């Protein structure tokens, strides 16, 4: 359904087909992060046209299957085990904190932010910076004083730049010089976004302030969206197992089933509940709707991803056995579509399996991998401490989710 709101020239899209059409329109520009420009100005998801293509093509050099294989098989399992170890010993953890800590560890590797000290205090400082950046990116939905918040986020960016980013840049420039001198090989270079941007700088010529926001964006986006999906997936699976105890074995042993559960979770809980676009020119949708230049288009992802025409009469329910029409992703449009489709989709959620998928070579995604790891550690709700929603945002995030392990 498409609802034009005449007084404000705003169109709300709530059907799956119309949303897909909107996402693929070249004259609709990103509008979701207008209020969050303290972090999001000039970053990849906010660019349009030739500028966007140029940046994305450079960055996609790292977001390729072979890199994801390296992350998923070589790097991430060790990080997951190391991050979880103290909580397993303790027998419990707040899943919201764990999700962000774990995904920060993984996102730091992907973004290219080093932690040379390797201490818990250093990680905590990076974690605190990331929390400010998350508040920046989601400023539009904040319930706090937005002006004061933006000023504090700007300060955090400055401090993070000095403490973490500049040393990470220096190390990579030294590595590139060593490569040039024949002292190391290509395989010795870090495989991350920062290195990719430094190597592609002749093409992009990014000012320092843009590079800073871009890496901050990859850090926050990689950590935050995966962390929320991680907690929500565990919550949904626990709910599913309460009604379907026969699937407990599958969660422990079948990574394709866990991946399917994560995809279903992401469908029901898009990281942002809405997508937004500005019309740069008049746009004609396939449905016949005419969107005038200057209008705002809001994609209601909660409704789109629960469109009964596509996902069936039980579209609002969690069902990992849901059958989908051809060409429809199991996560709906939570990763968007068109030019701004999430660059980290395969990294976070893996490749959508086919009927002939070989589990031995399949990419499952870091969230399904982490979720299954938790279930193999016996994750369950803490009956004495029920989970609570986050009151600092209009977004439906968990604020705390105490869980028991072992």
């Amino acid at each position, binding site marked *: 359904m498409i609802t034009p709101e005449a007084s404000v020239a705003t169109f709300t899209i709530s059907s799956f*087909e119309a949303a*897909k059409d909107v996402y*693929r329109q*070249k004259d609709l520009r990103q509008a979701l992060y207008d209020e969050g420009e303290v972090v999001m100005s000039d970053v990849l998801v906010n660019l349009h046209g030739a500028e966007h*293509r140029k940046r*994305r*093509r450079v960055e*996609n*050099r790292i*977001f*390729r*299957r072979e890199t994801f294989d390296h992350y998923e098989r070589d790097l991430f399992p060790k990080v997951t085990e190391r991050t979880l170890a103290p909580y397993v010993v303790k027998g419990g953890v707040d899943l919201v904190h764990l999700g962000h800590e774990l995904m920060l560890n993984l996102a730091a590797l992907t973004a290219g932010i080093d932690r040379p000290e390797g201490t818990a205090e250093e990680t905590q400082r990076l974690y605190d910076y990331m929390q400010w950046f998350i508040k920046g990116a989601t400023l539009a939905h904040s319930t706090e004083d937005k002006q004061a918040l933006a000023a504090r986020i700007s300060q955090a960016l400055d401090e993070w730049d000095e403490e973490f980013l500049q040393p990470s840049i220096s190390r990579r420039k030294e590595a590139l010089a060593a490569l040039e001198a024949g002292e190391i090989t290509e395989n010795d270079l870090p495989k991350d976004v920062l290195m990719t941007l430094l190597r592609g700088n002749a093409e992009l010529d990014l000012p320092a302030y843009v590079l800073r926001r871009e890496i901050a964006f990859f850090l926050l986006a990689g950590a935050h969206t995966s962390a929320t999906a991680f907690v929500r997936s565990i919550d949904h699976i626990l709910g599913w197992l309460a009604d379907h105890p026969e699937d407990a074995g599958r969660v422990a042993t079948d990574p394709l089933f866990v991946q399917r559960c994560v995809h279903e979770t992401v469908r029901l809980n898009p990281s942002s509940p809405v997508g937004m676009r500005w019309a740069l020119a008049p746009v004609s949708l396939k449905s016949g709707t005419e969107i005038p230049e200057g209008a705002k288009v809001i994609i209601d992802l909660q409704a789109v991803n629960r469109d009964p025409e596509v996902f069936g009469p039980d579209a609002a329910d969690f069902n990992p056995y849901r059958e989908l029409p*051809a*060409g429809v992703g199991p996560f709906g449009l939570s990763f968007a*579509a*068109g*030019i701004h*489709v999430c*660059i980290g*989709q*395969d990294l976070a959620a893996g490749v*959508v399996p*086919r009927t002939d998928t070989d589990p031995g070579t399949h990419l499952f995604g870091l969230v399904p991998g982490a979720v299954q790891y938790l279930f193999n550690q016996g994750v369950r709700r803490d009956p004495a401490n029920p989970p609570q929603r986050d009151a600092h945002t209009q977004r439906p995030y968990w604020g705390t989710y105490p869980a028991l392990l072992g």
Partner: protein
Amino acid sequence: MGFEVRVDKDVCISSGKCVADAPAAFRFDDDEIAEPVAGVSALGDDHLVEIARSCPSGAIQVFDQGVEVTLD
């Protein structure tokens, strides 16, 4: 005659999904934009449609005797 395929170079974002899924059928050109190669004709029509559907940016278009195949 099998389906034909084109890549909209203004839409391709160089994700490399088609190149990874069907390396005998797609490659990157000098500008790192996906392009079909001779091997694409060996892919079955269904496989070609599946690859086009998997393209994250919707840059791959499939044609049946000159008429664009609806992927949705």
